[in-house]
């Protein structure tokens, strides 16, 4: 086994995904401990240029039309050959729509241990991950064999994994990529919503805690008073109470408002991923252990239904 830390670079429609840079930053920290190099694995088609911004010591590049965009079958075929050949100390994947499609399969196939939902790593090869929606932290140790780490955002900054230096890019030999069982037919672009929540200064995020669809109207009154727009965590959108264009989180939008007022949102990692960049987060939740209080600057442990009317009164009174 080598001392190198590998990172599966994720990209969609010609753009490197932020999680790739986050993983490179984490890989650097691990590599400092092992004394190895940070190596990016970039799979694509005529996509070598994507390597330019990666803060890696080198990039292994696999080029093939079937790799132009991510599909699990093609990626898996390449990685199941590459990883045993290279024997890295660890391979970092995103715990994302891309990484999570292949890391489990590869773990099972190559008999490589896997730790999921990892937030941070340390030079002494400890890995911190979360379970139970961020309510429990888990510290694991890398074993003496190659290990897989599936990462979520939260600890490392995107900029820490970026560089202008341009790593050395080495082409890799690919296995046959025919007979694929999964192919991408097409992408469907998101419908443009009535508002672009990524551009708003003030957002009120609502979650399961608002309980009924009718209560959204009530929150809208508050939003009007504050000049805010409403957005939501996944369960609200799955219920059809707000359109997908208002969803914040992993599969939704990433927002960076001046103020994110979070109402009845527990703060599961999938949601936090989309709003952690807010300048200020104020969270109202009945559950004192809600992980949203780890993200918020200010927290209110209170029944939100008892708070909305007094808050609206106070805003009207003041403005």
């Amino acid at each position, binding site marked *: 086994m080598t001392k190198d830390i590998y990172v599966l670079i994720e990209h969609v429609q010609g753009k490197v995904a932020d999680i790739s840079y986050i993983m490179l930053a984490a890989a650097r920290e691990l590599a400092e401990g092992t004394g190895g190099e940070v190596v990016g694995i970039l799979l694509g088609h005529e996509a070598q240029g994507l390597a330019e911004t990666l803060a890696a010591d080198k990039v292994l590049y696999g080029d093939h039309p079937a790799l132009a965009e991510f599909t*699990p079958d093609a990626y898996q075929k390449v990685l199941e050959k590459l990883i045993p050949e290279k024997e890295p100390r660890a391979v970092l994947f995103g715990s994302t*729509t891309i990484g*999570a*499609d*292949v*890391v*489990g*399969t590869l*773990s*099972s*196939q190559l008999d490589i*241990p*896997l*730790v*999921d*939902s990892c937030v941070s790593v340390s030079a002494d090869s400890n890995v911190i991950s979360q*379970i*139970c*929606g961020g*309510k*429990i932290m*888990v*510290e*694991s*140790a*890398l*074993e003496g064999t190659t*290990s897989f780490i*599936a990462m979520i955002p939260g600890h490392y900054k995107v900029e820490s994994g970026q560089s202008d230096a341009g790593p050395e890019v080495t082409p890799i030999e690919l296995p046959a990529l025919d007979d694929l*069982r999964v192919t991408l037919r*097409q992408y*469907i*672009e*998101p419908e443009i919503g009535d508002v672009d929540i990524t551009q708003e200064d003030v957002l009120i995020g609502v979650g399961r805690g608002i309980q009924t669809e009718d209560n959204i109207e009530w929150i809208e009154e508050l939003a009007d008073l*504050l000049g805010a727009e409403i957005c939501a965590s*996944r369960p609200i959108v*799955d*219920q059809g109470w707000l359109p*997908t264009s208002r*969803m914040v989180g992993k*599969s939704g*939008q*990433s927002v960076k408002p*001046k*103020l994110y007022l979070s109402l009845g949102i*527990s703060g599961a990692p999938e949601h936090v991923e989309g709003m952690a960049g807010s300048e200020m987060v104020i*969270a109202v939740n009945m*559950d004192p*252990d809600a992980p949203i209080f*780890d993200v918020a*600057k*200010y*927290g*209110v442990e*209170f029944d939100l239904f*008892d708070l909305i009317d*007094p808050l609206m009164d*106070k*805003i009207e009174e*003041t403005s």
Partner: protein
Amino acid sequence: MTKIVVLAKLVPDLVEELEIAPDGKALDMMWLRLLINEFDNHAIEQAVLLKEAVGGEVTIISPDAEGVDDMLFTTAAKGADKLIKLVGDFEDMPNNHALASAFAKVAKEEQPDLILTGVQANNDLDGAIGPLVAKELDMPYVGYISGVTLEEGGVIARKEYPGGLIGEMEVKLPAVLGIQASEEPPRYVAISKVRQMMKSAAIDEHDVPELADTGGLPVNRMYLPEAAERAEMIEGDEDEIAAKLVELFQEIGVM
């Protein structure tokens, strides 16, 4: 006839207070309340929707846990045809590598065209179930799916990407799909209908002899997030809190 198998498990209810076991390396299962993994609930709904659209048979497979019979009967009330409970040493919640191999063995006997399961669960420390099962059965896997259409020899699975982008994936069957959300919200069934199922439906029990505890990394410790990272809490009655919030809004210039 399309045979659909859904793999569903119960997970800790996060509304309850969670505690760490005395050895500091696991969740304390003693007082833990369990409920169905919400993504598995969506997988069940998606399976029933497919059955309603094109016909077929839906089988639900779940590992034994407190409350699993009720959960299985509820799926029957929603439209599931066959209920299977894995019986074995599931008390301490085995890791997903072990659970996946148990799931795979029983699922294989059903000769499914399509296996659906939740894309993730809140206790997936060693990865999600779907990809692990897919490997055991040598089937393709695609996750983060929020829509499935059956076609000749395959399915079109709508895969979610950040920012609301959808990838339409053509997947050859048999396959495993990790469901993020069903096309319709999971349906509600009346308790009376579930009670009826308790009388009329049967749960098949399958013994699972041994669960290997490999596949994850060794856990040094589990702990609750440290208090230092927490928000500054605003105390008081509703008027005091409202006043403080307005003060903050003014401070950051949004009012």
